């Protein structure tokens, strides 16, 4: 087991920076999710850690050992890293047992010992008795579990997951998520988990690294990522946050400040030391928005869409002050609004997104 260190890691293909100046540290035994839209560089990041690509600049360390820097690159086979591939990458010409036992064969583990370990690993992923089958005969979930068992057997110091649930259906995802969580608990292995699915990342990870256009934009615990996004991109990417233009009216006081948003005043949470400024942005969540009664201060506007969600309705709302801005929130049954109805809402709370310099 070992942690992972990346210092100023940059990877350039031609004149395109796939990964730009990424610095992060994953503690021994930590579960880190790397989250971002497709093309953000997260897969390149994984390939850099695994050693399939060499870094253009910076340094990668696994445990105490530097494995990549601009001068050289420890080959993947010497890194003791495990990978669970998106498409499973099971060898079609080998049985399940041969797939799982491959690492032991490479390490020249004695046969009966190897067989015991393979059986053990298969039992751990609930695939007892599947050893003689070929991957083609397995379902998607079973293949994923074989891939997990294969990874498990090698007892790697660091396990990389490359969007492992992308090819599975929703029900299977939930059960595989449990499986991964159990895997992490049982083995205590350091895990770097690449995904574009934030629900997955939130459910599994100790911390989440959000990437955008090759850069690491925020690295925090899921709760903090949600409540205190560091940039506009994170705010809107995580849980569909609503980003609104605002003006900061007062300096920070007890973790809050007053802002003017869409012509109304509101009190939002903020970082310590925020000062009044123009052209700020705040991030609101659906639950930060509530209905205001006529006569109360609030934002007038139009309901553009009302989608029934079972027990509640998701309302999309365009304020009269700036109809190009869309807000959304949920109302429990019964829903009094139809599409096109006029309504008045109030922004109860929010988060002042730090200015670019602070991020």
């Amino acid at each position, binding site marked *: 087991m070992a942690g992972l260190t990346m210092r100023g890691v940059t990877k350039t293909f031609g004149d395109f920076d796939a990964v730009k100046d990424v610095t992060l540290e994953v503690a021994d035994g930590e579960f880190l999710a790397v989250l971002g839209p497709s093309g953000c560089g997260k897969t390149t990041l994984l390939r850099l850690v695994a050693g399939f690509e060499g870094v253009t600049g910076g340094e990668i360390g696994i445990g105490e050992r*530097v494995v990549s820097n601009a001068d050289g690159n420890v080959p993947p086979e010497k890194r003791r890293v495990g990978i669970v591939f998106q498409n499973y*990458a099971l060898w079609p010409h080998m049985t399940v047992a041969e797939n799982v036992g491959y*690492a032991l064969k490479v390490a020249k583990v004695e046969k009966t010992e190897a067989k015991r370990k393979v059986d053990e690993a298969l039992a751990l992923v609930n695939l007892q008795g599947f050893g003689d089958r070929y991957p083609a005969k397995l379902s998607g979930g079973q293949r994923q579990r074989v891939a997990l068992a294969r990874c498990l057997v090698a007892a790697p110091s660091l396990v990389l997951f490359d969007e492992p649930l992308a090819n599975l259906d929703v029900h299977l995802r939930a059960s595989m998520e449990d499986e991964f969580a159990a895997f992490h608990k049982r083995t205590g292995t350091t895990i770097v988990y690449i995904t574009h699915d934030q629900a997955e990342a939130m459910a599994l990870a100790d911390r989440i690294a959000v990437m955008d256009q090759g850069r690491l934009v925020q690295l925090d615990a899921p709760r903090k990522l949600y409540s205190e996004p560091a940039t506009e991109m994170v705010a809107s990417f995580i849980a569909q946050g609503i980003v609104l233009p605002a003006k900061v009216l007062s300096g920070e006081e007890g973790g809050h400040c007053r802002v003017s948003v869409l012509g109304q005043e509101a009190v939002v949470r903020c970082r310590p030391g925020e000062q009044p400024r123009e052209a700020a942005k705040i991030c609101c969540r659906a639950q930060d928005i509530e209905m205001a009664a006529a006569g109360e201060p609030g934002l007038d506007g139009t309901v553009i869409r009302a989608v029934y969600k079972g027990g509640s309705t998701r309302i999309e709302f365009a304020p009269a002050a700036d109809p190009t801005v869309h807000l959304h929130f949920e109302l429990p049954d019964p829903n009094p609004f139809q599409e096109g109805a006029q309504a008045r809402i109030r922004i109860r709370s929010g988060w002042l997104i730090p200015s670019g310099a602070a991020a």
Partner: protein
Amino acid sequence: MAQALKEWRGQEMALAVAVAAIIAVLSLLPMVRLVWEIVAPGGTFSLSAINAGLANPATLTATINTLVVGIGGTVVAVVAGTVVALVVALTDMRGRNAFVLCFVMPLMIAPQVTALAWLQLFGPASPFLKLIGMAPPLGSRNPLYSPEGIILLLGIQYAPLVFLLVRAGLRKLPRELVEAARAGGAGWFTVLRTVVLPLMTPSIVAAAALAFVSSVGNFGIPAFLGIPANYLVLPTLIYQRLAGGGPAVLGEVAFLSVLIGVIAMAGILAQEAMSRRRDYRISSTSLPADPYPLGRFRLPLEIAMWVLIAGILVLPLFGLMLTSLVPGHGIPLSSQTATLANYKFVLFEHAGSRRAFGNSMMLALGAAIFAVLAALPVAYLVAWGRQRWVRFANLMIELPYALPGVVLAIASLLLFLRPIPLTGIHIYNTVWIILYAYLARFLVLALRPTVSGYHQVDRALEEAAQVTGAGLFMRMRTVIFPLVAPAAMAGGLLIFMTALSELTVSALLWSSGSETIGVVMFSFEQGGDSKYAAALSIITVSITFGLMLATNMFARHLPNGVLPWRD
């Protein structure tokens, strides 16, 4: 700590060195020797050979003729091979195994045998036409003595080549891609046009390049059909010059062969350019698409397909067989006159012919096994390597095959006329010089399908092995080779069949004791003993056919796609 990064990657180095050595010995060496002969005949620099070649009007005529039959033959082969591959792979036609077996046969028949068979079939002396009373009057011209005849036979010869490559590509076509298009409302022909054919582009383009290079370099067919009509292509021009002028014309002949090399390289570069334009890689692997039900068109289509077989395979071979049973020239064939004496003669009585069987078997097996073993690592670098020199290396391997066999034979002669330096080993006038030429010439036949094989394997499969700690050799042995072997072995099989009755190379390199079947066949034909040539042809065709059937029996134990003629 920094020291750990500069690890000695011995296995990677060993692989690169081995691949470089294979290419240097089999490709660079003969090429350099050949070019040396053009620019510096006799050791001093001179352009006289090139000037002499350019000044000769026969050069231009032969170049144009080469392009005409090369392109014509390629078009016929690509259209026929692709259509047949689509029908076989995508429809519910019955009796596929038998059909594929028959359709692939012409490829395993040496070009000179094909030419001989067709000439026997259509000529005024045709025992077959006499049998059905349709023989043209004696002295009338055989219609095959024409460019059209050459194009037709080249097309028939190489359609199976196209078929095999396209068929292999179709085998990898995941059903989801077809089903997704059909679910999108596309009819069968729309699916074919918008999904199947575009995805098959790399296979079809590769097949076209191969057919073009083969047609341009073919010697047997234009020799038999073109020379009587005085329609010379570059390979036959070279052969005539050499036969007439001896070593004195080596320089001029070398120039002509470089000319063919340039034409063939243009075809290969066009292929490279076309397959680079888009990414055609199929990432997922799954079951092949369900066969398309032909409904009431099934029987007519099946009949049409078998009529095709009758036309291109059964009738010519039947004509050849009849000739092999004739007791003597001019004697009409009947149940009374038919004899097996010709077979007895070539099998037991003629010493050279007997030796030739052993030699050709050994040469074909040796070349096939070596090529498969060499293609796996070479293709690894070509398909997945990042080294810049690999693309150049790939072109270098294409070169010996792109050049007609005559040229490689001359290059080999020039190389081994004297003993190999430092060792003193003299392989000139032995069977080993033929083996060397075969290895150099046929390696690419195994390399091409192997490279396509690599392209269609998801590299994550290797990476998965790599992260478990498996070194390069271990990965190759346990993961890569088993996945790519079917493609490589298909290539090896092609080599065996091509080499078994190969003529062009061995015709120039043989010596007493190292005759090949092709050489013996050729000398019988030259001596006017068509009946012996026909008997030999029938025997080699039977051996090949028997081998195909025999390997079919073990097909259950082989991975899918190893046997090209098995569906």
